[in-house]
């Protein structure tokens, strides 16, 4: 039923509007990509679809709560970049660690952190991962090996190298996924980290999320060597690869090679994910530095969720109904998280003074 009706409505639209025929072309293009795409089981695809959708819906809800004044300060949404963390997380095993910047909600959900705890941190409540004391940019989960949530551009990069150092020191074959933005790639400490990581063969994967902009500055305007950031490790002997960050399977494939490289003790590796953020830099950014067309083109032709959806449907792995069921499940999770984030009380005033120092 649902399947049929949605088919009908899409047929109506495509006959009516040119834009829709473009969309259809995009669908065809993605189908083409699907045939070239690395093999994935239907179960994998369903899982990635669900996980990416969870991030998307979660972020949309966060944006909404921000608009309602329930979330304050800076709030950087991850919408558009979902394939990066989901593809990378698919390559990890127990004990692997993750660290990133302030654009961190997607990473937290990908590591399996509870959406309720994440949302409640966004609203600054007791039930949040940092008891409300960290906020959107500063959340951590020792249990899920998620090391934050860092507000100073570039600062997480040496921290990630340090986590990798500890993983190596302890004799594990675990790796640290160290995410960084394109803008952050101009911070000196990134290169200091590259040098040490190679020198000591640290098991660290530097995942550059090149979403084309650092705030209002395009990567071309900030990078002397243009948009190619995966080359930035060359001087330090770090192999670097460019990856289609809008395709979860391409991410996973690159991620698997990178993880294998690290686990084999071959030192650091760079993956540059070509990706895109649909929203402004933070909630207060009108994003006038790029055109609507640019954004729409990415949304319509390169959306990471649509891509997987197309593969599922076209490959006959799922029906519209199956996907609707997932949509429903995800919506439910997000709405419960939103409810929890509003019901959880503000932290007790005594919390102001806790967690500054530990007793020696």
């Amino acid at each position, binding site marked *: 039923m649902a399947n049929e009706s949605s088919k009908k409505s899409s047929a109506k639209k495509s006959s009516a509007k040119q834009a829709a025929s473009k969309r259809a072309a995009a669908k065809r293009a993605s189908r083409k990509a699907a045939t070239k795409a690395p093999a994935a089981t239907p179960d994998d695809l369903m899982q990635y679809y669900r996980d990416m959708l969870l991030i998307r819906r979660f972020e949309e809800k966060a944006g909404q709560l921000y608009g309602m004044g329930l979330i*304050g*300060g*800076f709030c950087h949404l991850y919408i558009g970049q979902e394939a990066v963390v989901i593809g990378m997380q698919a390559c990890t095993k127990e004990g692997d660690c993750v660290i990133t910047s302030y654009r961190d909600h997607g990473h937290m959900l990908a590591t399996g952190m509870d959406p309720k705890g994440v949302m409640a*941190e966004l609203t*600054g*409540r007791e039930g949040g991962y*940092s*008891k*409300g*004391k*960290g*906020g*959107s*940019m*500063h959340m951590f989960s020792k249990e899920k090996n998620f090391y934050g949530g*860092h*507000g*100073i*551009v*570039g600062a997480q990069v040496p921290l990630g190298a340090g986590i990798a150092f500890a993983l190596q020191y302890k004799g594990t074959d675990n790796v640290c996924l160290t995410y960084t933005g394109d*803008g*952050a790639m*101009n*911070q*000196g*400490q990134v290169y200091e980290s590259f040098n040490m990581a190679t020198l000591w063969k640290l098991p660290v994967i530097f995942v550059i999320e090149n979403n084309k902009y*650092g*705030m*209002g*500055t395009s990567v071309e*305007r*900030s*990078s002397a060597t243009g948009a190619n950031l995966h080359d930035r490790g060359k001087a330090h002997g770090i192999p670097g690869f460019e990856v289609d960050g809008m395709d979860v399977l391409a991410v996973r494939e690159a991620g698997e090679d990178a993880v294998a490289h690290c686990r084999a003790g071959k030192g650091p590796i760079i993956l540059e994910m070509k990706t895109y953020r649909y929203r402004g830099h933070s909630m207060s950014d009108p994003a006038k*530095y790029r055109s609507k067309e640019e954004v729409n083109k990415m949304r319509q032709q390169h959306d990471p969720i649509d891509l997987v959806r197309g593969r599922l449907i076209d490959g006959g792995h799922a029906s519209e109904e199956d996907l609707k069921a997932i949509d429903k499940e995800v919506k439910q999770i997000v709405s419960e998280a939103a409810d929890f984030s509003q019901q959880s009380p*503000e*932290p007790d*005033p005594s*919390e*102001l*003074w806790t967690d*500054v120092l530990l007793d020696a």
Partner: protein
Amino acid sequence: MTIQVLMPALSPTMTEGTLAKWNVKEGDAVASGDVIAEIETDKATMEFEAVDEGVIGQILVAEGTEGVAVNTPIAVLLEEGEDESALSSAGASAPAAAPAEPEPAEPAQSAPAAPAAAAPAEAAPAAEAEWTGPTKTLAVREALRDAMWEEMARDESVFLMGEEVAEYQGAYKVTQGLLDEFGAKRVIDTPITEQGFAGLGVGAAFMGLRPIVEFMTFNFAMQAIDQIINSAAKTLYMSGGQMGAPIVFRGPNGAASRVGAQHSQCYASWYAHCPGLKVVSPWSAADAKGLLKSAIRDPNPVIFLENEMLYGQSFEVPDADDWLVPIGKAKVVRPGKDVTITAFSIMVGRALEAAEKLAEEGIDAEVIDLRSIRPLDVETIVRSVQKTNRIVSCEEGWPFAGVGSEIAALMMERAFDWLDAPVARVHGADVPLPYAANLEKLALPQAQSIVEAAKAVCYR
């Protein structure tokens, strides 16, 4: 003339050493650069080279001697044409062994005896003349922009650099319009590379340019603090006055609203701690404009601390061609007789609000806007305390070694006899700033905290 070969100091901490081995004997000819001995320091065994040419006339300290003080003559070198007869006079002219151990320096003293090396007192500059002419209403954001605009128009060597200052028109829209007016040569978008562009700015300032370096917020200046202090603040001194850095580092400082611990810090006392820097932190738009213009013209590095919450607040600003406010002069923004309240930046507004509340309870507070943290206008504060006999210092930053600590110490030194109550400090809670709305409010000092502190020092 014979040449004395002295026991060398081979490390910054070496005061004596062992003459481990002579590589030459009396009568040997040596050239400069020849290794003549091996000397053991506390850290290593070092080769000791001759610095002159000649013949070893006499070895004064035998191989194996321990505890040879630095600068003790260890050998005598005969120059060309000299023979051993020259040696007798050489002995006589030997300096009296090694200089004695330096006397331990007197421990630095605090009051009441003034420390021996007290800095010369800095006299506060004359205040700007009272403005009676026309004014216009400007937001702090516009006043800052106008100041940069005027100074860039006035002086070709002034340029502006920072993240998003040009095409984006400033992350907080403070630099609006400057790119259009002055072009990309003088209004420069940088990559996110604070230590790099702060250092580059200092280098350009060494060359006589006058950079205005904007930090998107001062929280990010921590990436660059080494260049600010080690390069900008110290070079004038280290070069014996040859070159300094006429540079302004500016941007929002302190807490904004709910932006969490890493984005909410007051750096006033951090920078004010360092000699070689001036630190300014205005509240009103008129002061923002006049002080920024003075800062740009100042031949020294000036840290200019703004506040995001004030950017949108409007004030009357003198409608003058060239409105300047001197750095180093505080301003009494509300006269009163019962208690002195000092504040800077956003805390001035809260202090005035507190003064209103205090007035309702019959306490007449005098509010001083410090404007400049360093140099600090101690004179104005002391004069006020001589009248009120009580003082409350307010700041958003942490208490430990804060601006309030400095004021408390200064009042003890300079106004002790006039104080009828201990100095009170109002400040941010001594914790990283929490995100939760209720905790953030508890952490930041509000007008009510000032009211309470003022009442306490009035014993009310």
